[in-house]
């Protein structure tokens, strides 16, 4: 069995990492620049971020490949460098990964609308995700994280492409927001539908990431837990960003999220981590809580 699934099945709650994007900005990524190109031009920065997360206690770190798909890289004229960026990113994370810890290949949305609402045919979306998933596997990742999905067709296409073109376990999450209609993605998908769609597509772990902070994440996981037997992942944002001294700063500090992370664990998550605005200090705090359990 895949070592990652083995660790997950052992019943231990696995600690993922915090954000990549906001960490990159802290370490010099200019606004609007291509984050994935840093895998080639600034490998030391990427390695430092991964190393900091492992030191903070992460069992899993995510590669700097959230936008490393053909559709998104096109914007920077890098559409033919998917394989290069993904393999480099996987190898950078692997090079600082201690024994018994894991590297997850991050895969985000294409940024395009699928047919019939948009212009991207489903089979092309499938190929885009298959290309990225295969490259991440070739680079040596242990698991794939499909994340920040909002449109159901795109989400399930990504999971299918990952499952059918690699031997890796697939963790799949969507981004929900609390409104008048309850917790929904921008496409109006509720937690139950998301769980069903992801299970049907073959995801090994399902859950939620990004969003408006830890409080909403607790609500999502409480809703999701009774709906599925599959392991659950939760990676919340550190609240909502403010702009302070030329940087996006998130409002939820490690101290603020500590009791909330504890509640998330109680709600039944199997993998816990952070999204935008969370850093190594947030992960360290969650690690302390996990160690006390």
């Amino acid at each position, binding site marked *: 069995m895949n070592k990652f699934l083995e660790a997950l099945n052992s019943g231990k709650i696995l600690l993922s990492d915090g954000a990549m*994007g906001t960490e990159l900005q802290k370490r010099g990524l200019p606004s609007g620049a291509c984050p994935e190109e840093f895998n080639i031009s600034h490998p030391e920065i990427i390695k430092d971020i991964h190393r900091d997360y492992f030191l903070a206690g992460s069992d899993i770190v995510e590669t700097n490949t959230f936008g490393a798909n053909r559709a998104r890289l096109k914007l920077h004229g890098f559409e033919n460098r998917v394989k290069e960026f993904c393999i480099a990113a996987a190898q950078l994370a692997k090079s600082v990964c201690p024994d018994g810890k894991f590297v997850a290949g991050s895969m985000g949305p294409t940024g395009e609308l699928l047919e019939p609402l948009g212009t991207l045919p489903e089979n092309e979306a499938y190929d885009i995700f298959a290309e990225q998933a295969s490259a991440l596997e070739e680079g040596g990742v242990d698991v794939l994280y499909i994340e920040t999905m909002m449109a159901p067709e795109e989400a399930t296409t990504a999971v299918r492409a990952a499952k059918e073109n690699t031997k890796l376990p697939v963790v799949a999450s969507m981004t929900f927001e609390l409104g008048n209609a309850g917790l929904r993605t921008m496409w109006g998908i509720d937690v139950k539908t998301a769980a069903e769609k992801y299970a049907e597509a073959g995801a090994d772990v399902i859950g939620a990431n990004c969003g408006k902070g830890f409080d909403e994440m607790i609500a999502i996981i409480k809703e999701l837990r009774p709906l599925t037997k599959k392991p659950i992942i939760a990676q919340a944002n550190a609240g909502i960003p*403010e702009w302070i001294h030329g940087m996006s700063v998130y409002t939820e500090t490690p101290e603020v999220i500590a009791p909330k992370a504890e509640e998330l664990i109680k709600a039944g998550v199997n993998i816990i981590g952070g999204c935008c605005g969370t850093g190594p200090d947030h992960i360290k705090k969650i690690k302390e809580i996990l160690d006390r359990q």
Partner: protein
Amino acid sequence: MTEEIFKELSQAVIDGNKDKSIELTNKLLELGIDAKTILDFGLLPGMDVVGIRFRDNIIFVPQVLISARAMKSSLAILEPLLSKADLKGSGTIIMGTVKGDIHDIGKNIVSMMLRSSGFTVIDLGIDTKVEKFIDAIKKENADIVGMSALLTTTMGYMKVVIDKIKEEGILVKTMVGGAPISKAFASEVGADGYAKNATDAVKLAKQLIGIEVKENKIE
């Protein structure tokens, strides 16, 4: 009787029924109704309802896009018949997703709602650099520039654009929006306004150029 058809046309836009929307638009034209009246009393009231339902989470992105498509199909029939004066509305707004960001669904919905409310919208698309914003503002003598971002790694670029506008002393109002954007962020970067959703963006745009805003209520 025509009143009934206007209602049906609004409903076709709300339902996103493109064929019906086209059919009713043509029917009204055959009855001798002028294009501007069809727009104002058929299409726009429909789009208003769509905007409010979207704001209130009664409908979501896919339904808005389907309604927009119905509206656009009818508008394509009406546009050649509308005079320049009919189309020239409240003010001119430059819209764009900022540099490094390709996400345009939210921005497109906002652009569409602004157009529906009588604004002339110049949409610069995605990955918009500061020079492109500045050139467009000057060329169009714009009243407002609206910026959108979905990523935490790109939202900071809004400040680059706003700083440049201030540096050059251009008299244009700025408004910002997007998933990671907040009111606090907007004031930190020096924007004149922030809107949480498309309906609020229309309200904000009107306020920024001094148009009185009436509260929209849905029965």
